Each structure stands twice: as C-alpha cells, then as structure tokens.
C-alpha cells in the first residue's frame, strides 16, 4: 500500500510530461500545416506561405481570352515534330481561344490542385460517351467533342508505376513542382501529362518477374549499396510565386509516351491563388 502511494506522484508527473510533449508535437505539426509550409526558414506572415514545400490548395483562375491575350489556366497540344514555341498545335473546335489552339480550363469541384495528396479519378472514370468524369481539379472540358479532365493518382493510369503526390516547393520566389501524377483522361484513354515523367512500368513481364525484381531491388539496396532506380525522369514544372498576393503561375510541357497520341506534347499553364491548408485526402 505504502509503496503504491509513493509511486503515484512519479506516475502523475510522468504522465503530465508525456501529455505536454505529445500536445507540443501535435501543435507543432498543426501549425506547420496551417502555415502551408513544411519547413519554415523564412516566415512570411502576410502570405501565410513560406519558403519550403507549399501544402494546400492551388486554386485555379479560370482561363480567359481577350483578343490574342490568354490569361488564367489553359492547355495546348503540340503535334508530333512540332515544338512548344511554334506548334503546330491541335485546333480544338470546341475552343475559341487563339483560333482553337488553346483550350481554356476552369477549376473543378475542389477549386484546383491540392498538394501532398491525390485527387484521383473516379470509378468509372468515363461515361458511356467517353467523357471524363474526373472533376476535382478542373471542370471536364470539351476537346474535339469529348470532355477531358485531370486527376492525380497513386498509380498512374497510363504508365502504371506508383507516383508521388503533387508537391510544390518555393525557393527564392520560384516554384518547382513535382507533378508526375498529373494525368489527363479523354475518350476512355489516359495520358500521363506530368512533369517530371514517371518511368513507365508497362513492359511485358514473365510470370513472377515483378516479384523477383522487387526482391532483387531490396537485396541490391540492402547489401550491395545500389542506388534505388529512378521512378521519374525529365524536368519538373516551374513557376513563380508572389508572397504578398499568394498568386502563382505554374507551367510545363509533357511529352506523351505511348498510346494513340504517342509523340504529341501537352503544354500546361496554371494560374491562381495559393491557399495554405491541409493535405488532400488520400
């Protein structure tokens, strides 16, 4: 009895310290999420967004055309053997912007792109007419008579590897984004349009080869000090960020590899306002 009585104050103190530590850790985590940045070397109270990873919603500004001037969020498709600067571009009869050479995009139900999480395509991904049903990032938009849209997926629907969720990093006012999971869906087809590009995992495999490869990669990594194989290739999306207004611009080009539009290139331009917040649901 005496021994128990003597032990109680120690236990209480230990519990209090543990609760304080846990509460402190949770508070630190939540404040990090609220500030929208994982690391916080240069706190910026005006914008709420700091140097480091920007976690939250990149709310998209709808695309608009005034004469030859295109603003907001848009997309172009370069034909094979063309180049990003001069085209030739596909002329989308459903768009009036730049004679159909530009397709204007509107934000979807989420308002735009969320980082550090996926905005996956629904199941089914298409209706019977081939129109894309993914509507979180952008509103499904007519492209040659059939609606196309965007999603970010844990496993890329076209190239098949597991890909990281979108991340955007701010450094010296410049944005660098890993958008490897950016996938366009149109007419019952999926096209990876990410930057950098995921390394495809679609080659034919003998029975058991995939498991054997996984075992070998583990052994090579653990005992042979082999560097893990790259999962993405090419350059990331880049852009600018205004810390005062939190206005951002992200742009990149992405070559289509495989499928019916092998060799075509998508040019993407996202504009909008960054809203620091929580990660996207998984």
């Amino acid at each position: 009895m005496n021994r128990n009585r003597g032990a109680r104050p120690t236990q209480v103190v230990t519990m209090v310290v543990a609760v304080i530590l846990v509460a402190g850790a949770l508070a630190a985590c939540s404040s990090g999420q609220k500030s929208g940045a994982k690391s916080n070397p240069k706190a910026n109270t005006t914008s709420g967004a700091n140097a480091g990873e920007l976690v939250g919603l990149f709310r998209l500004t709808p695309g608009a055309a005034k004469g030859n001037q295109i603003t907001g969020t848009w997309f172009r498709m370069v034909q094979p053997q063309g180049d990003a600067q001069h085209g030739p571009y596909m002329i989308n009869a459903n768009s009036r912007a730049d004679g159909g050479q530009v397709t204007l995009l509107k934000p979807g139900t989420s308002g735009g792109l969320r980082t550090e999480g996926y905005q996956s395509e629904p199941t089914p991904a298409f209706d019977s007419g081939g129109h894309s049903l993914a509507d979180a990032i952008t509103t499904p938009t007519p492209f040659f008579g059939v609606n196309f849209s965007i999603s970010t997926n844990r496993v890329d629907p076209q190239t098949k590897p597991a890909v990281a969720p979108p991340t955007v990093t701010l450094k010296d006012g410049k944005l660098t984004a890993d958008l490897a999971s950016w996938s366009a869906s149109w007419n019952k087809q999926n096209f990876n349009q990410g930057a950098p590009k995921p390394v495809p995992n679609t080659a034919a495999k003998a029975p058991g080869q995939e498991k054997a490869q996984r075992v070998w990669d583990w052994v090579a990594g653990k005992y042979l000090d082999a560097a893990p194989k790259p999962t993405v290739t090419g350059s990331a999306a880049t852009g600018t960020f205004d810390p005062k207004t939190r206005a951002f611009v992200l742009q990149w080009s992405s070559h289509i590899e495989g499928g019916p539009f092998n060799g075509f290139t998508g040019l993407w331009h996202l504009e909008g306002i960054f809203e620091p917040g929580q990660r996207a649901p998984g």
Partner: protein
Amino acid sequence: MSALPQILGPLDLPQAPPVTRAAATPMRRPKAPALALLALGVVLTFGPIVGGLFAKVASGKQLIDQFAPHMEADALARDNTDLARLRRGAAGVDGVYLRQRLPEGRFPILDEYRRQASGIDGRATNLLDRVEAAGPDYRRVAAIGGFDRVPFLIVACGLVAIYGSCVLLFGRRNRARWAVGLMMLAGAALSMYPFLSDLRTGAHAGERLLPQLAPVMTRENVRQLQRDFVVLVEADGELETGFRKVPRNATAAAGITAMVNAWPTISSDLASLVGVINDNIHNYNELEQLDALPRRVGLSGLAGLPWLLVGVGSACAGLSVAALPRRRKETR
C-alpha cells in the same frame, strides 16, 4: 546296438573341391552420353536466359492479350460501322461543296479533309481488312495454353539434366536409376507439352500471323494513322461549327450528321486501336525474334518451335537412358 558302427565302417569323405564363384562384372559408367546430357542441361538452363526467351515469350503473350478486345466480332463490326459513317460523311461534304459551289479556301480544314478522305478511307479499310483476316490465326495463337510458361519448362528440364548427369558421372550407383527416371520424366514433359497445349497448331498460326500484321505494326504506320486522326478530328470540329451554316440537301445532311453524332464513338475506337498498335510494336518485334530462333537451328520459324521442344525432350530422355551405368560385357 553296439555292432552297428562296425558294419558301416569308417566314413571317408573325399576332399571337397574349392567352390569358385564367377567374379562380378564391373559396372560401366557411359561417359559420353552423360557428358552430352550435361552439355544439353547447361544449354537448356542458360540458353533461355541469355537468349532473352522469357522476355520474348512474355511480349508475345502481352501482344495477344492487349489485342483481344479489338479482335472480337462486335468490335470489328463497330469498326466497320465507323468506317461506313466516315464514308457517308465524306460523301456528304463533297455533295455540299459541289451543290453550293464552295470555293477552295473558305473552309481550309475541310479542303484538306476532302483531299485526304479517300486516302484515309483506303488506309483504314486496309487496316481493318488485315486485322479481320488475322482473326482466325490470332484465336489459334491465343488458345495456346501456358505459352508464357514455356521458358520455365525448358529451364526446369535443363536443371534436371544437369543434376542427373552429375549423379550419373560422379554419384552413387544406387541413385542412378532414380536420376534417370527423373530425367526421363522431364524430357517427356517437354516433349509432350506441344501436344497437350495446342502449341503445335498455335505456332503454325503464329508464323502466319506475323507477316499478316507486319505492315500494321510499324512506327510509320502509327504516325500515318495519327496524321489521319488529326485531319479527321479537325474536320469534325469544322463540321460542327463553321460549316453548319452552309445549306445542304437531306442526303448530305444525313451523312454529315451521322458522322458528327458518331464522332465520340469513332474517335474512341480509332484512338484505342492506334494506341494498342503503338504500344505493341516492341512486343511484335520481340515475337519476330522468337520466330527467328528456331531458324538458327535449321527449323522453320515459330512452327518449328514445338518440334524443337519435342526433339530436345526426347534427346534428354534418350541420353539419360544411354548414360545409365551398366555391367561390362564378359570378354573371353
């Protein structure tokens, strides 16, 4: 009673001659067939790995699997309907141009479409004809059971042959029969596989399928189909927008409307087929290399593959029997 020994007298047995036993005939280990078996085992084990047989067979399987939805009767019927709609649409556009005397340059996208329409139709018809003609052979190839397991069977037979030949050359004699039995079983499995899996029929069909698909499975063909797609998709856009205002008669209107309304289906079918062709060019090339493998040993293409397996399996079984240790014949 006491006189009895005297009557019989003393027993005097002659000295028995020594018993001689024939010396055991020494066992003979036939080295030549065992060494040949060892060599065969090494070739069967490492040949498929070094020669990339696993990848080639897997590529062939993937090609067959990915083409499956496009080889079904309803898919081919839908493709033919798409083509008929495109033809009617092109005729309708021509009709409107002639009736309204539309000058060149008023609808530049449709001008280009009119120039290319017959070429596009010819190429698409040719593509569909080839795919349809390849159907029966495709189905025979698809019916091969466990095609992607063939390399495993060969390697397994090779490993058994290596093990068995080592037992026959260096192991205890009492294990020899067991090892020979195992090798005969492996050889029999390899020899019987072509007959049990429809490989014989399928390989003949595969050899015919390759040249049938050869003009289709090229990068140039894919690029041409993509160019045709761009012309069609842009023409469809023009028909849905600027060209709508141009007056037309009922026949032309019906053709154009049918094409425009069906465009999502047409574009989906066409895109899907072009995608499968593009994504399987590498697989097709691998299958062509597989076809070339039996030719290296003097057999005819893929059709020779079953007989190659029968020959190798029989050789394995035959050599294992020949390598079984046996007694030497007595020499006089």
